[in-house]
């Protein structure tokens, strides 16, 4: 029993951290009042560009430097995803086009772009598209902690640096939103842009920056997924599953009631449910249909929405101006 529980938890924790990072990016964007449905596409672009750059780098040099490799992977993923965020902002903030429409376009475009790039890339290689070097760097474990503490080591310290980076970033974003002036202003932009504007806060600047940085984080989640979760292998078909994970991240933001710290445990709930179909049969002999298990996160999100709306608690609502373009009042 326990020997089956540990792999489930390992899978769960690893997936949860990646999901939390993607959702963290989306949360930052939504806090500014932009409902970015482009997150799945953005993540695909981040993953594809990051992987391709690292693969090319490893192939090009004799002895790849681990540090350069990490900077390259994270940098390229972050920047390419950021461009998607900038594109989203241009359409929704500058041109004030409906956010849902543009978000969906960004996702369709992002998935298509990622597939196009990787198709071209896979054809240009020998066929076995793996980057073991990068996988090794990304999954390097903390020496002592990952070995000497028994079960704790196996469950909590069995992961690469991105796992801990994700948790740290969630804490940083939580502190940023609640304890800093810029964070306060950002929340105001998402809650009541007219009030923020009257207080001298540039709604345009905040929304652009939130979308760019948030998308960048989503891009990091993309490369995290590829290097650790997909074990450094790449196939065009992976893009579809990354897209599916992207939607999961969008739902997670709602499940977490727009609070960064809730993402940490919320993502774990999501991920345990999402992978239940793989581990339940071995553990308890129950067979769960894959699709049913993978539907669970969405079902519980809907339940959370129903419960929070019934409770009418103002604190657990999304940003009041979420999804609305801002027009300065003119007569």
């Amino acid at each position, binding site marked *: 029993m326990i020997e089956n529980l540990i792999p489930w938890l390992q899978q769960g924790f690893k997936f949860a951290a990646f999901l939390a990072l993607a959702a963290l990016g989306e949360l930052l964007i939504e806090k500014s009042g932009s409902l970015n449905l482009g997150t799945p596409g953005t993540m695909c672009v981040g993953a594809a560009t990051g992987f391709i750059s690292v693969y090319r780098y490893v192939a090009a040099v004799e002895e790849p430097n681990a540090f350069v490799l990490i900077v390259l992977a994270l940098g390229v993923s972050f920047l390419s995803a950021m461009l998607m965020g900038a594109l989203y902002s241009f359409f929704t903030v500058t041109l004030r086009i409906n956010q849902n429409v543009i978000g969906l376009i960004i996702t369709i475009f992002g998935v298509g772009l990622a597939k196009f790039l990787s198709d071209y890339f896979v054809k240009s290689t020998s066929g076995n598209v793996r980057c073991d070097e990068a996988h090794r760097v990304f999954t390097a474990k903390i020496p002592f902690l990952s070995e000497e503490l028994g079960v704790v080591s196996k469950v909590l310290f069995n992961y690469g640096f991105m796992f801990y980076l994700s948790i740290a970033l969630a804490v940083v974003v939580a502190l940023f939103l609640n304890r800093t*002036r810029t964070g306060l202003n950002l929340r105001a932009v998402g809650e009541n842009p007219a009030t923020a504007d*009257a207080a001298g806060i540039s709604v345009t600047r905040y929304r652009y920056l939130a979308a760019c940085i948030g998308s960048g984080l989503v891009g990091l989640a993309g490369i995290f997924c590829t290097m650790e979760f997909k074990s450094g292998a790449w196939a065009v078909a992976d893009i579809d599953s990354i897209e599916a994970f992207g939607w999961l991240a969008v739902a997670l933001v709602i499940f977490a009631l727009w609070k960064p710290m809730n993402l940490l445990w919320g993502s774990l709930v999501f991920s345990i449910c999402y992978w239940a179909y793989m581990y339940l049969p071995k553990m308890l002999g129950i067979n769960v249909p894959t699709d049913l298990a993978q539907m669970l996160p969405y079902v519980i999100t809907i339940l959370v929405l129903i419960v929070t709306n019934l409770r009418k608690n*103002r604190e657990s609502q999304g940003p009041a101006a979420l999804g609305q373009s801002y027009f300065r009042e003119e007569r």
Partner: protein
Amino acid sequence: MDTQNKIAVSFRGVTKTFGSVYANRDVTMEIHKGEILSLLGENGSGKTTLMNMLSGIYCPDAGEIYLDGKQVTIRSPQDAHALGIGMIHQHFKLVDVFTAAENVLLGVKGREILNVAEATEKINTICRTYGFEIDPSMKVYDMTVSQKQTLEIVKALYRGANILILDEPTAVLTPQETDKLFSVLREMRKDGKTVIIITHKLHEVLAVSDRVAILRKGEYVDTVETATANEQILTELMVGQKVELNIERPAPENPVLRLQVEHLTVKGHEGETVLEDVSFDAYGGEILGIAGISGCGQKELLESIAGLQHVEAGSKVLYDAPDGTKEDLIGKDPKKIKELGVALSFVPEDRLGMGLVGGMGMVGNMQLRNYTMRKSILAEIKHSKELAEQIREELGVVTPSLNTPVRRLSGGNVQKVLVGREIASAPAVLMTAYAVRGLDIGASYTIYHLLNKQKAKGVAVIFVGEDLDVLVALCDRIMVLCDGKVNGIVDGRTATKEEIGYLMTNLKTEGGESNG
């Protein structure tokens, strides 16, 4: 102190237009340091526009603004903050889910890490100085309207405002809260702050201000010392000379009771009373005017009758249908009211918002009313097209085609389409709100003529208006609303503008005496 140093703000020839309409024309006036100045005027007299230019919401088209004798250009609310000008708008600019302290800190420059404790301390100091009562850790959504207003004032003071502008500050307050506000304003004056309150309540003007500046139709009229003023003088200055309008007013022909409104009470979003115990009758064959400062419950009154407003228990709207039946309209939704054979047409004040769909042409907008005519899944087109054509011809609507989106038409044409459609349903009661707002003279007369034709047909016309000259020239009877209460119903033929203006601004007390 010589006069140069006494003047805080001076406007020189300030003009602001919106399209072809002058909101302010050549306004030259001065505001003294350390005084409470009331800015008095009817609806649309340009009080708020003038102050919006001081607080950076609008930029003047012509003229200059001087602050402490220096010419200034105020391009944004931030510029105004920097110059020590703070304005408290009618609609509060607060973030609901933030605490009072967070709202105060919003947009203020300073160290990146928020120091809420320090801000709280500063807020408490401000509160102690001027006698505010506010809990910095309270969330805005838990606050009463009065507390929100206090928070807005504290916010302005925290940013170092020396000149404070309050737009209709007492509109949402109870009398006790108003008294408290006034005592705070007096404290601020003692501290050397300049306070400007935009208002049209005369007794408040007399109670709190040092001087009163009067605007009429966008132009500056005069400034009088409050000590030497009384309600009569102020009313006369506010409404001005009677303007003769050649609006025909045939005598009502055998009026019949159509609508009996009894004890109508409506509460607003914040729980404040918008309409209180309103009772009146409307007769077929007459035009009943409704006068009042804007926001005194006119909109809610019409919406209650049309079934669009939630009303408090005890309210009754009895409708006497032409066939002799009697129905209470309360509790019925707009469609049900129609199904019951109750012919009720409603022209909302926001023409393109609630009356018409801007993106649709005339035909489409006719279909909105006719959609139940045909009992099949296909939309009714033929009748709507005929109706649209008929309205275009009869009312002279200028439009490139019947399918041109109505939002591209001029205001007068849009209004004709809307009124034409409502009249086409042959109502027994026709309600209009600000039917001529923004229309030129010619278009306005077309509308008056239309209403008179309906009156001749025996329709009970309810006309909510804002121009007193029009009300006294067009209406048979005029009901005056003040603070959501009926403050008198006068005969349109004998009433004077001064009389109505006085009723609009001075609520009678229970004994029937004006409390001034």
